[in-house]
């Protein structure tokens, strides 16, 4: 069990956590759309996990960086840049007053993130298996 496999395993779990956060946000938005929760609760729940999401992604990138997985790091960069930009513009939180007008956009944005993360997961699994096989041989 060398460092490489460990790092892949770790990044795999971080990615799963990220996907979980995104799915949670999507669920809140879907609930809101079908009137299961009110906009105040929905916005509060989503906003409570936005910064953890950004932090987790930062940690993932850092992990890729120090473990020398350049390719994965570069793959993560657009996502990181997007998050950083939203944060700088103070648009990262959901606005409770405009949440219904922004609903479609918020959902679309999170769906794209989700697809992006799933692609990353596949890459990670691939590299993980690769490095396991590599070690065996």
């Amino acid at each position: 069990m060398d460092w490489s496999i460990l790092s892949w395993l770790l990044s795999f779990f971080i990615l799963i956590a990220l996907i979980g956060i995104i799915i949670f946000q999507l669920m809140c938005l879907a609930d809101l759309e079908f009137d299961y929760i009110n906009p105040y609760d929905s916005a509060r729940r989503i906003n409570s996990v936005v910064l953890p999401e950004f932090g987790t992604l930062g940690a993932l990138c850092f992990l890729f960086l120090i473990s020398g997985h350049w390719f994965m790091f570069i793959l993560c960069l657009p996502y990181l840049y997007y998050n950083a930009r939203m944060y700088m513009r103070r648009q990262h939180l959901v606005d409770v007053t405009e949440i219904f007008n922004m609903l479609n956009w918020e959902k679309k944005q999170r769906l794209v993130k989700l697809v992006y993360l799933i692609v990353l997961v596949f890459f990670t699994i691939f590299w993980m298996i690769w490095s396991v096989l590599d070690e065996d041989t």
Partner: protein
Amino acid sequence: MASERPGPPTYLGKPTISPFPAAPQTTMPFLSSGPVVGSEGTGYRANTPSGSNGPPMSSPPSTYASPNVGVHQRFPSQQYPAPVQQISNLRGPPAGQPVLPPPVLPSAQQVLPPPGSFRPQPQIPSMPMGSPPQSANLQPPRGIVPSSPLESSFSAPRSALQSSLHGYPSNQANLVSQVPPMQSPSFLAPQGGYVPPPPLAAPVGLSSREQMQHPGVGPPVGAMQNLVEEFQSLSVGSVPGSIDPGLDPKALPRPFEGDLMPNSIAKMYPLNCHSRYLRLTTNAIPNSQSLLSRWHFPLAAVIHPLAEAPDGEEVPIVNFGPTGIIRCRRCRTYVNPYITFTDGGRKWRCNICSLLNDVPGEYFAHLDATGRRIDNDQRPELTKGSVEFVAPTEYMVRPPMPPLYFFLIDVSVSAVRSGMLEVVAKTIKSSLDELPGFPRTQIGFLTFDSTLHFYNMKSSLSQPQMMVVSDLDDIFVPLPDDLLVNLSESRHVVDAFLDSLPSMFQENLNVESAFGPALKAAFMVMSQLGGKLLIFQSTLPSLGIGRLKLRGDDPRAYGTDKEHALRIPEDPLYKQMAADFSKYQIGVNVYAFSDKYTDIASLGTLAKYTGGQVCYYPGFQSSIHGEKLKYELARDLTRETAWEAVMRIRCGKGVRFTTYHGHFMLRSTDLLALPAVDCDKAFAMQLSLEDTLLTTQTVYFQVALLYTSSSGERRIRVHTAAAPVVTDLGEMYRQADTGAIVSLFSRLAIERTLSYKLEDARNSIQQRIVKALREYRNLYAVQHRLGGRMIYPGSLQFLLLYGLALCKSIPLRGGFADVQLDERCAAGYTMMTLPIAGLLKLLYPRLIRIDEYLQNASAKIDDFGKFSKSLPLTMQSLDSRGLYIYDDGFRFIMWFGKMLSSDIAVNLLGVDLSTFPDLSKVSLCELDNEMSRKLMAILKRFRASNPSYYQLPQLLRQGEQPREAFLLFANLLEDQNCGTCGYVDWMLQIHRQIQQSA
């Protein structure tokens, strides 16, 4: 006479919804070929006994030469006694229609001969050769001759010979008539003149240049009679070699009548709620997505749920008692006039979702032979489109709240110096007796500068106790209760407080404003009950949370991508607070007074999400603006208010409301939370089609406003309306409602300024108009060969002008230098809530000359209507010998001409204008002379027409710069100003754009 008019024809087999008393028109299809003169009222008719409705008559057109009695005064080339008739001769000016000097709107009217028309040619023989009616153009019927060689004008030089070769001997001709230019579409339609052209006439196409230039109404060439009511057109082609733009400014349509409510829908669906409550942008719902996408205007409803009804038309109140309110089980629609009873009265079918519901035992009534309930007439909910139900306890989450007013008053130095504090205190005191909801009304006060001052008003005290909290970082409320007290119990304490309030802070020199902490404190006090929070702010918030920067008006920001940031709240706290206020049923009204920047964009957010309003009095001085503030604050306090309200609009299957525009907060996808809403607020909502094809004939809408009345009763106000589903784009345009469209445009454009540049918002309005008119043009232009003309639906004749007015309205006008940022934002907030009539008045104000009336000793106020003629908003309307009033519903601007006889000014103002007094300091008050009393009566009458605001008269002398340019000239929207084009240029510009890709 009416019975002989060819009425609106059947269009596509569907009953045409026409605003006109429809005349029998079955004969329409047969009309075509005879020299049937469809008009009466002239000597002509005697010779053609058939009338327009008769079967094709063989009355020879030899009668022609006689009849046309000198019409076409403005057509110099009209030497021939052409069989034309003047419409005004036929019908007389319609009531209420200003008959202006004849600016020649040639209206044309033809009749389409059906193929196989049997009118034999020789029956029209006796027309003198070579005397073609110049204004009557011959034109083969549409669809028969594929194209016309003509491009630019509507004269169709098709010789009669040619057309007779086609076997249509007497194809239609045009009746070109003169009509007053300002006619409403309803005026145009039924003049059915029909003039058969002489078959062997000289080549036609003679329409003179003059004629081409005159804006026309109706299709100049073309087809069926009904087209006349379908569109109007203006010719805009310029004469070669002339610099004249080819548009007669006098003849352009202008909405002097103000808001015209659509009446055809009320005729078609008499059970609908009155259109003051609900208006659709078009009273014809498209049946498919593809049709909707060709209607380039928004498909939307403008709802004014608490509109003030005139006496005798109040919304009836229905109490179902223990039965409970009758609603559809599935879609929760309320019982309304459009439901149908079946099964002997035991079941009713929901008109919105078609579900069969049981009729509760207590509500049962037998049906008569026609299927109506026998008690139908006693049940307002089954006969009236608007009704109010008393809601039982299921509709309450808590006991109905009492009316509650909380005042948050800035007492810093600027508030005291401007006199705002004194006016506010006095006004509140004088309104105490009229606050709604006695004896449950609650009231509370909080004042602030750099500290917060709470007032204990417990009824056992004789004087209010003041408590000062200076810790702004950790706000707490010093007393658990007694900050909000019952007004009737603590009345003497409240009175004592309001009496002493101005003097208490007279010496206050504090310039700071801890607005954010004060807001938090007010929220803490009010969050138990909710209510209305009135904020009086006269400086920029400078301390504690929510402090705002002097973002000011950076001229460099304009025209860049950062421009819009100035118009949105700077601190997210304000949005957050607004959301919290809305959650706890607190409605916020913001009164702002500073002459310096106060960031209305941020403050107004509080009102935006709580159903409130923003009142802005820039540079408030109690001596000048005191009256205005007094009136508007008193109205705010005393008008009927709906508390803790929610509003939902339901509609039939296949359509769905998607976006909402106005001041409210969305609590779920279709539920508008309105903590406090009153009769001056309107809301707009856009529709989208869900299914690709609507199969029903009618779509129903139902607005339900659930609220607590001031009397403490929970009520549901329900407005129900129906609209037909159509398959035809032309019908959608015909049924369009300019007022509703303009209201939507203004809201969309103002919302757009919050995320884009002003320029973009203006362009988007223009683009939408262009797209829609281009689409409309494609419907008609080709087949009618309207090459160089601009055509638009009669229902939308004022839309272009309103579009221009919108681009020049304060929220969208110009750039940095044209309007102060605060004023822009405040006007934006106001326009987002304005009902349609108020908005149209603001966009196209009234300009009236009054000196003649004032000088006419015998004229009484009741005669004022005769003197008051609305003038076009252009400099040319101003005569230096006159006195004019400009009334936009928010203020009066009185313009004294230079050469106005001096006794008028002396009589009205008490000063001589020749001494060049500073008119901004002169206030208008009633003097002891007849003229002054008359003026006051006029102003009173004007004010009565718009009671929502107090119109403060601002006086202006001709040549008094820069006030004149700023106050009046910038608002004369038909002129070129603020770097934007005038009315004529605007029309040409739109016309060019339509042509570009048409």
